[in-house]
């Protein structure tokens, strides 16, 4: 079975994001970019399936500007076999990403597509669900465990509001990763070197026949109100007294 993983380039999770003074977006100049952590988990899961002999080929796909190729290289260094870069400078919203990924899936015919449950920049949490809808495939979102069965089905355990839930889906299907699915590996130096030789195909939205024009217009981006630090109390007794008599919350 072939697996497709969607990997997104985002501002690194450790960067303190700053809103631009003109309110048009956030500062991205000279800011460290990385693969979205949930996409690392997606890639790791695909690589483990391949190591277990359940998967024959892993294709890593990223959509966006020229630098997204670096993110694909990271996936290749982790163990993906080849990359597809859908190049565009248009702001991509989840519906457009899902349509573009659908076009790639139609060409590649994978048995499984793995995405992150959310990208930590736009926090939309939509793309995987939208992709499976457009394909007419089952969706297994927020996955913390995947078991591929022999009868063209899979059991997926999902992180839900009350705990965990297990569903059975037919293959092909779309899965989105939650934090506890696995711990992604660091790419070793030899694998980083090998990744440089792995192929990355470039495509455009036009070639895929998709119009990626955004449906949502960003009117402005502002900083949320800041919380200021309060006081330090000296003892537990003082804390309880403050909560009772000053804040009046207990």
């Amino acid at each position: 079975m072939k697996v497709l993983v969607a990997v997104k380039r985002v501002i690194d999770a450790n960067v303190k994001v700053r809103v631009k003074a003109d309110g048009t977006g956030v500062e991205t100049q000279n800011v460290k970019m990385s693969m979205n952590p949930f996409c690392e988990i997606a890639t790791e899961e695909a690589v483990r399936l391949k190591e277990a002999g359940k998967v024959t080929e892993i294709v890593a796909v990223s959509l966006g500007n020229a630098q997204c190729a670096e993110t694909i290289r990271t996936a290749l260094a982790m163990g993906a076999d080849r990359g597809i870069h859908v190049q565009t400078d248009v702001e991509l919203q989840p519906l457009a990403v899902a349509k573009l990924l659908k076009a790639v899936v139609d060409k590649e015919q994978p048995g499984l597509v793995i995405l992150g449950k959310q990208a930590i920049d736009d926090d939309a949490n939509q793309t995987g669900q939208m992709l499976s809808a457009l394909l007419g495939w089952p969706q297994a979102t927020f996955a913390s465990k995947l078991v591929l069965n022999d009868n063209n089905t899979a059991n997926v355990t999902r992180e839900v509001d009350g705990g965990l839930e297990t569903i059975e889906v037919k293959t092909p299907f779309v899965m989105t990763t939650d934090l506890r699915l696995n711990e992604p590996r660091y790419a070793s130096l030899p694998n980083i070197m090998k990744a440089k030789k792995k192929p990355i195909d470039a495509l455009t939205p036009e070639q895929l026949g998709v119009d990626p024009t955004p449906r949502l217009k960003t009117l402005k981006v502002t900083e949320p109100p800041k919380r200021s630090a309060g006081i330090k109390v000296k003892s537990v007794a003082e804390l309880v007294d403050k909560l009772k008599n000053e804040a009046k919350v207990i």
Partner: protein
Amino acid sequence: MSILVLAEHDNASLKSATLHAVTAAQKIGGDIHILVAGAGAQAAADAAAKVAGVSKVLLADDAIYGHALAENVAKLIVGLAPNYSHVLSAATVNGKNILPRAAALLDVQQISEISAVESADTFVRPTYAGNALTTVQSSDKIKLITVRATAFDAVAETGGSAAVEKIASAGDAGLSKFLGQEVQKTERPELTSARIVVSGGRGMQSGDNFKMLEEVADKLGAAVGASRAAVDAGFVPNDYQVGQTGKIVAPELYVAVGISGAIQHLAGMKDSKVIVAINKDEDAPIFQVADYGLVADLFTAVPELVKELNK
């Protein structure tokens, strides 16, 4: 304009998240209908009919809706959506699972986790772990929206007298099946609607030590939460996680014990009314958002807290 709100429920009762979504619908303005898709869900529909400001409840009662499988519920929504200007859901795990699927089938770009309504087509949503508030305007004919419950007050649970209309099931998509669940039963309030939340982090060192926090929580009628580190370490189950990629909470009082205050954690609790931090490191970032900070070893401070609350 008519607005359809997808109910979050357990067939027997309506979850409070729905009440917050109805408030968001009121801010948009128009006739408000609630959709209850469930199995044996008459009681939940009756509860929805009592919610203030709701004019109609649609009940789709079918075994296939028993576990809210996205493929089936999205199909139902797609059939109903053309009658509405907006379709809303609370940004619960179910809402996040179902609504984007319906949106794609309707060729609509969903607007996720709104925290404010500016007008019928313009909304504010937190992005970048809450470090940026983005105002977006939608050009789609029907707007599909998930609502951040903590950003909108709950509408009154009673006072309404809407009619309950039974609607036909949209049929089984036949793509997925519910197999089972592991749900922790607890007498404590639900994390996302509790008035007080007591959370523990990596500093707790073990799941056993969380018993101390449970004692504090029970004294205060609070829910227990955790940082990602505490969940990853297996101290507590996944549904305890508060943060950017866990649950968003905004209680009257949030007590963070042995939690450093990473941005991803703050994203889930910084709108709490009063924040208390107990941490042995006086430079821990959590103190920058805490109203009351106590620099102390939690293994002495928490037992003392229990004693003090017993007084």
